[in-house]
């Protein structure tokens, strides 16, 4: 059998969608984590970090139950669209957002945290609103962190397996991602195709990470010094 390009393309689409959503969703969360002084903030940080330590089976199991027609959320979705979220691309997107959340939020928050508070104070003194300060001061200085977070959530979604296995249903062109395809090829003793696909994924992931780290390195050298 040959490489399943459909699965490859599907996985890239999934990763782009998830990392784009996480960029928008992750910014306010990371901003709050970096600047909030609430004493129970650490609890929120722990929740955000949960997907790093939880096995994907736990996440997949709860997502499957939460998306199913037996849960209020699942029922609401069914009444809205006429079908359940499990075994759909949207279902995978939701599962992947949860799964990759810390990989976006943590680098974002770390880079916001590293911004010189004097710059923020200066911006406020000059009359800029917090939003303006964010877009004109904090975000530009944090670009390497934003790139890292987005790239990591992209790469993490590319390599996702457990959650997809549990909520995907292995439908070609809809939920059969590269990692599932590789698993199937191995189970079917088709080592040659498994190897080709795995090598491709390996090369792609390496290239992607190398570019990100390369870009960030350049930013450090010629970017504004904090």
């Amino acid at each position, binding site marked *: 059998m040959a490489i399943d390009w459909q699965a490859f393309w599907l996985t890239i689409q999934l990763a782009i969608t998830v990392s784009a959503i996480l960029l928008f969703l992750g910014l306010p969360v990371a901003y709050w984590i970096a600047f909030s002084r609430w004493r129970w903030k650490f609890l929120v940080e722990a929740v955000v970090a949960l997907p790093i330590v939880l096995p994907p089976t736990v996440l997949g199991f709860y997502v499957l139950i939460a998306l199913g027609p037996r849960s209020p959320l699942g029922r609401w979705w069914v009444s809205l669209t006429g079908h359940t979220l*499990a075994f759909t691309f949207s279902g995978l997107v939701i599962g992947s957002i949860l799964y990759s959340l810390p990989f976006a939020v943590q680098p974002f928050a770390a880079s916001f945290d590293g911004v010189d508070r004097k710059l923020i104070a200066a911006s406020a003194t000059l009359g800029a609103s917090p939003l303006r300060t964010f877009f004109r001061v904090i975000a530009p200085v944090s670009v390497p962190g934003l790139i890292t977070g987005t790239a990591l959530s992209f790469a993490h979604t590319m390599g996702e397996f457990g959650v997809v296995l549990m909520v995907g249903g292995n439908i070609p062109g809809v939920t059969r991602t590269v990692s599932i395809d590789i698993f199937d090829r191995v189970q079917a003793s088709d080592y040659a195709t498994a190897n080709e696909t795995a090598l491709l994924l390996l090369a792609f992931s390496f290239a992607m990470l190398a570019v990100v780290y390369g870009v960030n390195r350049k930013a450090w050298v010629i970017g504004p010094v904090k």
Partner: protein
Amino acid sequence: MRKAIGSVSSAVLAACMVLSSTRGWAQEKQAKKGAPELVVAAAADLSTALKEIGEGYEKKTGVKVNFSFGASGALTQQIQNGAPFDLFFSADMDYPRQLITAGDADGASLYQYAVGKLVLWVPADSSLDVEHRGMNVLLDSSVKKIAIANPEHAPYGRAAVAALKHAGLYDRLADRLVLGENISQAAQFVESGNAQAGFVAFAHAIAPAMRGKGKYWEVPVDFYPPLAQGMIVLSHSRHKKEAAEFLEYVKTKEAAELLRKYGFALPRD
């Protein structure tokens, strides 16, 4: 004070972790020295029946039997890559034969212990009258997803595809199929309500965990090639004698009755 409580509780936690890990270790050591424990790779449809057979066997002989359930194709794959199993209970006869050819199993020990049955299962609260209308309910517009085991490596998945083709429904329903990694996952997809119907093992439909949760229709046996299931002693086994003894026990009337009770036909039937 709060800090003190925190450090005491974390110390207790750490102690518990160390204790439990050494206990697990000790058990492992004992298993190596004392009575041998068998590890059996078994098709997912056997999960209820074999566990009970294993418990009965342990009571009788003191030999503990541990199970690893999965799709037969997936287990075959693991065995070929050196998984430390003593016995293999497949959901078909082909995978054991494949292992014999590859030198991973003892050909003389191959024995057909049961014949699996395929059913179409829907949740109890479903409006689909599967008991009377059989596979025709799948054409109902409320059926968006139909769960089957992955036909690439699960014999029950192949049986489900064969049954759909036999009924002339496959082409119309192919885009509604969702694939479980094995027959248990297919059952779980329907049980959780995410798929509206599914082809599962009869053994699942009547298993204690599923009883009362659904309605089912037995797919006529001439709709799919018989699910003759074979068991075999593996070449990697370090307890070949004990493995062969357990295999003999599964052939006894006592064990066979349990297989029948949990939804299998016997080869002699």
